[in-house]
């Protein structure tokens, strides 16, 4: 050995390493070229458009709400194809009967399978991220406040990876023609069972529901007044990531697991670990399985400690940050065209003109009367763990409503399917709060119904404001006639009568016949 030879060694090692990387790169390029996923992408794109894009487009452009389609819809579509296609790719060597041929190559089986897996995963993740980009770009063009939430993307990507790993491993271990469709169906059943559990989740039975990425759409103003706590998404990523890591380890052991079974004799642990692909790969695979199981088990245990948080989500004490319970500082967008101020959160500023136009005529009818609100303001729909109801409070009086509920109407900020009904809903909500007895407590989520005289006055004021009143459930027969009579009065006469009799009307002592 000479000094020259010694000095050349590091260079040779680097060159060998580079050659190895280049070979792996070539393998991956070939795999990307031959992978079946691109052929199914048009079909996946079609169902993505029909399901995810159309559902997201039906929601108002609020980031958290729009991002919820990633877990609720997009992952369902990807699960159907990711699991099946990964199983198809995983069973390729057996399907083509090249198992023995491929075993003669210098690469260990784990490396070969990893390249196939990486190719499948690359295509699926690329398609997934392209879908997320399509939803987020559409939202960014329409949203008036906030930014893209990243946790739903992480959860969705972890879901795609976990389903792909499950499918690929099943394809390697059970290489049958029925593996792909049965696995796709199995994953979809699991997903829908998770949704079923999520829709009826309780603190005691919520582990599976919380670990499942499927969920009901959040409230319209989720993530608007308070940050969405990342506790549950962290647990979900940990759980699904743990499954993926454990299955990667199982793939490393796949060849070893097959050999003892075929040999049909007992082998020592040392021989088992050292067999075939080299002594280092098997222990690494065992460690990966252990780490994956530990991560998933930890996530499972953490999900068991979850409890409802004060702003409508779930908190996990070990992961929870008190900072996420603090309100997001924001200046509301306001309009006061004809003196009656209306304020909404900037995330809903596209509704501001509509709300102001709806409330202005009714506010003008009751302006100056005792307890009449000087302005209307949108507030958070959840506070202190309770649902907030619309009503008039404070001094000077302010009509407070939420994006979820105004009077008897729910989901007012979810969209405007019928403009006249939407407008009348706001007006009726304001008048319900104005005419109801101040001490009249609401029973459940719906405000207490008005008395006959109160209802007639409300209908008359709505008619005067140019709206069609909703038919009140259980209202007496004389209400429409009394309302018509009262609406026929000049505005000044109505106003004067209300000024004189408002307290008695609110107390419920005015009868229908007493209305002018």
């Amino acid at each position, binding site marked *: 050995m000479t000094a020259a030879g010694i000095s050349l060694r590091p260079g040779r090692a680097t060159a060998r390493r580079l050659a190895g990387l280049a070979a792996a790169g070539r393998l991956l390029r070939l795999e990307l070229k*031959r*992978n*079946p996923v691109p*052929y*199914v992408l048009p*079909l*996946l794109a*079609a*169902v993505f458009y*029909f*399901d995810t894009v*159309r*559902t997201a487009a039906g929601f108002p452009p609020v980031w958290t709400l729009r991002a919820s389609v990633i877990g609720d*819809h997009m992952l*369902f*579509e990807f699960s*159907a*194809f990711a699991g*099946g296609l990964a199983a*198809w790719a995983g069973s390729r060597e057996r*399907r*083509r009967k090249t198992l023995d041929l491929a075993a003669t190559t210098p690469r260990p089986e784990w490396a070969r399978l990893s390249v196939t897996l990486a190719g499948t995963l690359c295509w699926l993740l690329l398609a997934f991220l392209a879908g997320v980009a399509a939803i987020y770009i559409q939202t960014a063009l329409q949203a008036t406040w906030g930014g893209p939430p990243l946790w739903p993307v992480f959860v969705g990507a972890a879901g795609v990876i976990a389903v792909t790993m499950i499918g690929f491993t099943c394809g390697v271990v059970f290489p*049958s*023609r*029925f593996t*792909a*469709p*049965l696995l*796709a*169906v*199995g994953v*979809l*059943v699991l997903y*829908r*069972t998770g*949704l*079923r559990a999520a*829709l009826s989740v309780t603190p005691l039975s919520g582990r599976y529901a919380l670990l499942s990425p499927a969920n009901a759409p959040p409230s319209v103003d989720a993530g608007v007044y308070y940050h969405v706590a990342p506790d549950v998404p962290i647990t979900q990523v940990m759980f699904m990531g743990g499954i993926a890591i454990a299955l990667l380890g199982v793939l490393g052991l796949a060849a070893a697991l097959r050999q003892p079974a075929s040999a049909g004799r007992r082998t020592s642990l040392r021989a088992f670990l050292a067999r075939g692909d080299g002594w280092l790969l098997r222990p690494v695979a065992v460690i990966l399985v252990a780490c994956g199981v530990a991560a998933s088990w930890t996530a499972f245990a953490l999900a068991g400690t979850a409890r409802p948080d004060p702003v409508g989500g779930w908190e996990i004490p070990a992961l929870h940050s008190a900072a996420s319970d603090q309100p997001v500082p924001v200046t509301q967008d306001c309009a006061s065209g004809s003196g009656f101020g209306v304020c909404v959160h900037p995330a809903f500023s596209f509704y501001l003109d509509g709300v102001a136009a709806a409330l202005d005529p009714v506010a003008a009818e009751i302006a100056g009367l005792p307890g009449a609100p000087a302005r209307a303001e949108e507030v958070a729909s959840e506070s202190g763990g309770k649902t907030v109801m619309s009503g008039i409070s404070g001094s000077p009086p302010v009509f407070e409503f939420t994006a979820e509920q105004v009077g008897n109407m729910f989901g007012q900020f979810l969209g405007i399917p019928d403009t006249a009904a939407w407008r009348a809903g706001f007006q009726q909500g304001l008048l319900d709060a104005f005419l109801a007895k101040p001490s009249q407590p609401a029973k459940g989520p719906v405000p207490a119904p008005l008395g006959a005289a109160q209802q007639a006055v409300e209908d008359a004021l709505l008619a005067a404001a140019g709206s069609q009143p909703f038919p009140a459930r259980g209202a007496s027969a004389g209400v429409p006639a009394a309302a018509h009579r009262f609406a026929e009065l000049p505005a000044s006469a109505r106003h004067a009568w209300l000024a004189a009799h408002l307290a008695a009307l609110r107390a419920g002592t005015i009868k229908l016949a007493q209305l002018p």
Partner: protein
Amino acid sequence: VTAAGLVKLPAAPAGTTRRIPAGIRLTWLHLRSRHVPAGILALAVCGGVLRAALHWHWAFNSGPYAQQIPMIIEAGAAAVIAVTAHSPFGETERATGRRLPYLRLFTAAGMCGLAIALLQLGAAGESLNGGVLVLSRNVIGITGIGLACSLVTGGLLAWTLPMGYLVFCQYALLEAWSSPWTWPVRPPADRGAWICAGAVFVAGLLLFTIRGPRARLSDDS
């Protein structure tokens, strides 16, 4: 030595004197080459999963969500039938005689009937939303889609289009679409939905019978 001794047939070994008729043997070989016995086992698994889903209330009992899980399992059964379309012999099999289309026809139709029977057996005694009519219609229609798909993708990937249709119908279910082409969403006795599902099945079955699945000796993907 005379010629008489040479032409005498040797005695048949014990147990082989009863010969299986050629038609039955051909049918059995056809079914085995398509992995039909394993397919029946897969259909039985689907029936078992349906029973488990209904028994342990994995799905809702009523409302738009009630059809979700049964529909997935029915689509799975249809996908299994579509996958049995694959032949390991490829194009060369087509030169072997005239009986192949009939074998294809009876295999697919028989598997479809068996799938309905096994799924109904799984749902027996449980409350299945829509009942056996919706179950049958879904299996029939989605099997037609799968068989038609096998003409393009080959038998092994014929499960992809049924899965796509399933995902599409899950959306249609929540949106309460009323088009007869989304037959899993329609009520059990809806005539338009039955016509559409039947038409798709007949078209798929006829094309599959006449043309056969796309055959390649080695798959490229």
